[in-house]
């Protein structure tokens, strides 16, 4: 049988309860000033929720390797896009803009 094993009802309920607790947690955390960690906590909890849905509701836990590769590839390519775009914007200005070029002024490089 190619189909996945049938996940016990109990597992689904536990995952669902965990998800609801996490919603409450992440909403509550927004009311506490954690400085830059507000974003980290919010995205960290979102990541955990995503993993719960992926692993149990979407049966990734019981899937074959090919499905894992597909899921990881999607995440990897998304990080490529975000990472390389940010690499550009964050490293701008590391070298100060050169003075406007003019034909009369001699080059100022040492």
């Amino acid at each position: 049988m190619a189909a996945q094993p049938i996940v016990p009802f109990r597992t689904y309920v536990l995952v669902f309860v965990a998800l609801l607790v996490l919603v409450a947690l992440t909403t509550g955390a927004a009311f506490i000033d954690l400085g830059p960690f507000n974003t980290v906590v919010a995205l960290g909890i979102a990541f955990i929720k995503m993993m719960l849905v992926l692993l149990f509701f979407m049966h990734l836990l019981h899937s074959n390797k090919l499905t894992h590769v597909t899921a990881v590839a999607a995440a990897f390519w998304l990080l490529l896009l975000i990472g390389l775009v940010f690499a550009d914007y964050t490293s701008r200005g590391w070298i100060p803009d050169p003075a406007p070029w003019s034909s009369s002024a001699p080059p100022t490089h040492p």
Partner: protein
Amino acid sequence: MSTATTVAPEPRAATPLNYLNVEYGWRSWLFTKDHKRIALLYLISITFYFFIGGAFAVLMRIHLIDPQGALVQPETYNKLFTMHGIIMIFFFLIPSIPSVLGNFLVPLMIGARDLAFPRLNLLSWYIYMLGGAFTMYSVIHGGVDTGWTFYTPYSSTYANSQVIPAALGIFITGFSSILTGLNFIVTIHKMRAPGMTWFRMPLFLWSMYATSIIFVLGTPVLAIALFLLFLERVFQVGIFTPALGGDPLLFQHLFWFYSHPAVYIMILPAMGVISEIVPCFSRKRIFGYKVIGFSSVAIAVLSFLVWGHHMFVTGQSIYTGLVFSALSFMVAIPSAIKVFNWTATLYKGSISYDAPMLYALGFIGLFTMGGLTGLFLASLSTDVQLNGTYFIVAHFHYIMVGGAVMGYLGGMHYWWPKISGRLYPEIWARLAAAIIFVGFNLTFFPQFMLGYLGMPRRYAFYPAEFQFLNVMSSAGASILGVGYLIPLIYFAWSMRYGPIAGPNPWGATGLEWQTPSPPPKDNFEQPPAVADEAYDYAHQEVGLV
């Protein structure tokens, strides 16, 4: 009368049922789920767009005979190069080999009855036609003048032309690529015949697989970029408009995230075709099978890491520029590996110069030139000099026309006997290949020189000193145009009058040659099983007549 009725059915009765004669009528074509018929639907559509796009190129080359412009207003010239780019890239080159040859051959080569999702396959053709209709609407209603790259904020705010239908057309067509890529990946993973292991697959399939990765992971980003462009132009919300707080470079990042890998969508399938043709006409096993296969996948992955080399002079950070430059050099490695391996396959082979082989040899030379000039452009400092000149135009035409179109035509000649069951006139085919090779070089080599001398691209006028090279280029373009018309004529002729090809006119290996030409509706009379490596020409020679 009586002889006509008694004689006419006879050849038909003698012809076994195949995918072409199993059903008749327009319904059997427009509602077909047979991958071979869908491939032919694509063939007709992309040929149409090829000649439309070609017509724009002809008008441009006529215009550029005179330094002051011989034919059209500058505004019209802007539309000519834009429509040429859009149609050739999105409606001819990207679907060319995957949707025609890939659609036809992927199931045949792995020994399957069809692709995994035949209905999605047909849907992809309809989506393609819908996208094409939007783009043709924009052509008829005045065209677009933004360049095929749709750079913001010009396209989003200032351009006074049909940006929206053209962008929507490309947006829609993207989904047809995604469906094709999805179909190929699933088919190659799940539908291989018994014994067809990954390392027994023809290399064409490796290249199709690599191309599909780009289709699936790259195209949606272009879609979202064009979607945002569309919203920006309609609502002027400011995502790409500096005056409203946005950033135009974000568009370029999203655009090139797809559009650089798109270059490999065009060239990888052609590389796959060459990997089939070269061993067949050298009567040798291909040199370094695994390396070629893996280099296809390596190109697909690396292609996503280099897009910033299109943005060296746009204000992108210099540090990122350095990284993108280094990564761009890395893509050259798997490409060069392929060229070395094809050349090593030729070494001591018993080479015959049939038409497909002429295209393949042309491909190897022209692709090498296009690839090496790409290294000039991947270097930061040379790129500052050459960016926006005809050097760029010449470089990517060596890849796109010298590479991808040569590969496509080579593949069409190689598999035409399989597709149609008929042979084309070999002497005409060799003549056309020679004409195309000469015409191509005469058109685009002068453009390298023009770019090196500093002539910028996308201008309707140029200084008089560049006229000689421009006239040379235009003369070459007319030769090239003739060269492209000849195959159109003899392919059409051969469908009716060509000699019967038989299942394997080239004595080639591969499952697609073990079934009749044209193949039956379900591809194989008996389910095939594979016990040999690909390209086993050494052992197969005895069986050749």
